[in-house]
């Protein structure tokens, strides 16, 4: 238990949010990637977040909250990335080089508006974690000056 833990917590938040931003970028970049079969078509990817409990990292920890088996928590982790199972878009484009024998191509199930909202949310959350880190840094720097005046 110390101020140093906050760096780990905010760092885990930044890692998770940048991964979320990464999936959003990948989704938007592939929003118009057409394919001739449903299997080959790109599907929107979403990260799944989960909280890390301190007891998971260090089962025999001592101190704050340890007696009840609950620490203050140790940040967030990405449990995995799931592909959206929303319906793919089927468009009739016989002139398309990837069109199947009926003249249809499949487009990914990426909702660009949703992705943009996701992007804003994740960049805001990222900034918030950066703010936390800066505030903690100034708190720690103050501690170093204890008794210096």
């Amino acid at each position, binding site marked *: 238990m110390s101020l140093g833990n906050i760096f780990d917590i905010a760092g885990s938040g930044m890692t998770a949010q940048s991964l979320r931003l990464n999936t959003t970028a990948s989704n938007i970049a592939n929003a118009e990637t057409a394919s001739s079969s449903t299997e080959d078509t790109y599907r929107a990817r979403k990260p799944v977040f989960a909280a890390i409990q301190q007891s998971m990292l260090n089962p025999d920890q001592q101190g704050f909250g340890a007696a009840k088996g609950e620490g203050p928590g140790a940040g967030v982790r990405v449990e995995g990335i799931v592909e959206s199972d929303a319906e793919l878009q089927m468009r009739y484009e016989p002139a398309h080089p990837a069109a199947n024998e009926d003249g249809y191509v499949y487009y990914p199930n990426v909702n660009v508006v949703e992705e943009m909202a996701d992007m804003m949310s994740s960049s805001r959350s990222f900034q*918030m974690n950066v703010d936390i880190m800066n505030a903690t840094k100034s708190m720690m720097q103050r501690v170093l000056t204890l008794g210096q005046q």
Partner: protein
Amino acid sequence: MAISFDNALGIHEHALQARVQRAEVLANNLANADTPGYKARDIDFQAMMQKAQNSVSGFNMSATHSGHMDTSSPGADGELLYRTPNQPSIDGNTVEAQGEQTRFMRNAMDYQASFEFLSSKFAGLKKAIKGE
């Protein structure tokens, strides 16, 4: 006569400790602002201070019998309590990022205040030692 740091520094040492704990809990809330099902936590700073104050001043209610009830308020040992959300989101997350950030900044300011008190205690001790 030896100087007892516990007596000299008083409550501020405990306050600083509690502020660090609270900063950690609030930072964790903010890191999990987008985690589905995460419940925002906090510690009861006032109850913790009350307990620390009692132990510093020595006016603690003593329990001499196993039947004596604990008179300290819940949360006095720094255990984590759950926050009551104003507006829980549909995925079960109860972190309200703006509120948490405000609390974190406020906590950081209070930490600085506690730190100033502690610092001036040290300055006073130094002055006493030098005897100028």
